[in-house]
């Protein structure tokens, strides 16, 4: 029996980077991915901030790095049982495995924008999400995006910082994504006016503030501090937004040819049931509970069960990759009896 097998659940960027490092450490990662491709959400994106590197470039590089790992696509984990010396795992395709440790890299799902009914996603023709826009940038056709929009509006915090919608956390990356996508839209449609409606602009990362200043200075993007309260459709098919401009204290109204909703990050639905199989816990924020949120973010409360990436909370790509490397080391130390 191969006693160096590590089950990696999820073939997104976290799972790929961790697997690459596990291979280098002489372990044998088994990547189980439920979809038909590796790369997770990032594989569906166009360009990554802050250097606008093509996402496909990053994914290809990561996929290249896991040569030598066992990869199961279109496969789910049916069940896992803890044994004395590891885990007995049954995959949905009927494969049985005996793994020494489990690394959960199941990432996140986007908040379903249709749940914020007041924004009209799925009801009005001109309302899309951040991920729809990324796919369109990447060349996918989208009939909701007009040929020559004059006005494009972005709404931040859709399903984030929203206690009533069941997610009071900040999804961290959407502010920066909105500013990035606003700039990309202005580059595609130089005559369009771009409006961002935000509660706070949380531009915390490396060079994010540069994007904000550029968006204002070079691209003339308008920023309005206020959450859009409702969206309707006018007779011409344009969407009409209502918000309060909280800095002037006046209600404002804007018609737009396209509305982009910045959907937030939630923990994946099946992560909870996966975690339950190995008795890992879910934290009060809906994401997986780390053994310690400062010193042991990569470890669960159960020996042999590790986490990396957005399954423990919203993260950027570089944060996820750094965590994946740290998780690989944590697994290695566990296997070596060093912890």
């Amino acid at each position: 029996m191969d006693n160096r097998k590590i089950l990696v659940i999820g073939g997104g960027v976290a799972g790929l980077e961790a697997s690459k490092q596990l291979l280098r450490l002489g372990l044998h990662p088994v990547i189980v991915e439920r979809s038909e491709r590796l790369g997770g959400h990032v594989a569906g994106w166009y360009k990554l901030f802050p250097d606008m590197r093509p996402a496909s470039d990053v994914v290809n590089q990561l996929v290249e790095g896991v040569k030598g790992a066992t990869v199961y696509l279109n496969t789910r984990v049916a069940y896992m049982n803890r044994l004395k010396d590891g885990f007995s795992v049954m995959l949905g395709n009927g494969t049985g495995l005996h793994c020494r440790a489990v690394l959960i890299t199941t990432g996140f799902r986007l908040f379903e924008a249709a749940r914020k009914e007041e924004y009209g996603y799925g009801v009005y023709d001109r309302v899309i999400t951040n991920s729809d826009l990324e796919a369109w940038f990447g060349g996918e056709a989208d009939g909701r995006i007009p040929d020559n929009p004059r006005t494009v509006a972005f709404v931040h915090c859709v399903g984030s910082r929203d206690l009533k919608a069941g997610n009071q956390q900040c999804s961290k990356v959407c502010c920066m994504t909105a500013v990035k996508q606003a700039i990309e839209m202005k580059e595609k449609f130089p005559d369009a006016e771009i409006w961002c409606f935000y509660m706070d602009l949380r531009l915390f990362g490396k060079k994010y503030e540069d994007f904000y200043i550029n968006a204002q200075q070079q691209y003339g993007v308008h920023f309005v501090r206020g959450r859009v309260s409702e969206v309707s459709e006018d007779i011409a098919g344009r969407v009409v937004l209502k918000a309060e401009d909280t800095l002037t204290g006046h209600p404002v109204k804007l018609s737009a040819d396209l509305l982009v909703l910045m959907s937030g990050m939630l923990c994946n639905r099946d992560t909870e049931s996966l975690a339950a199989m190995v008795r890992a816990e879910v934290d009060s924020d809906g994401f997986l509970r780390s053994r310690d949120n400062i010193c042991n973010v990569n470890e669960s409360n159960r020996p042999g069960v590790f986490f990396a990436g957005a399954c423990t909370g919203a993260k950027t790509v570089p944060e996820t990759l750094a965590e994946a490397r740290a998780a690989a080391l944590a697994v290695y130390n566990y296997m070596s009896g060093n912890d």
Partner: protein
Amino acid sequence: MIDFGFSLSKSSSIKLDEVDLSLYRRLEEVEPGVRICMGCGSCSATCNASKWSGMSVRKVILDLQRGRDMKEMLSCCMLCGKCSMVCPRGINTRHLILSLCRLYESGK
């Protein structure tokens, strides 16, 4: 029209589609720095005139972006330039106020 003995107040809502930004656009040309204001309020907090007159460079810039006439507020400025000193985005607010005054003058 029947007099019901009351009147309707004017809507305070700003229709962003219909806002006249011509003055703001002319200001942008001579003072491109106006675009990078992030509304922090440092200028107003340090302004000597603000506590007596309500003068606020932040409000001037923002309200211009919403198509409002800010001439009256401008007349409260004493041009001391303290606001320029504290602006974290390095906007030359004193110069901006002068340029705006000139635009108002020339538009007479």
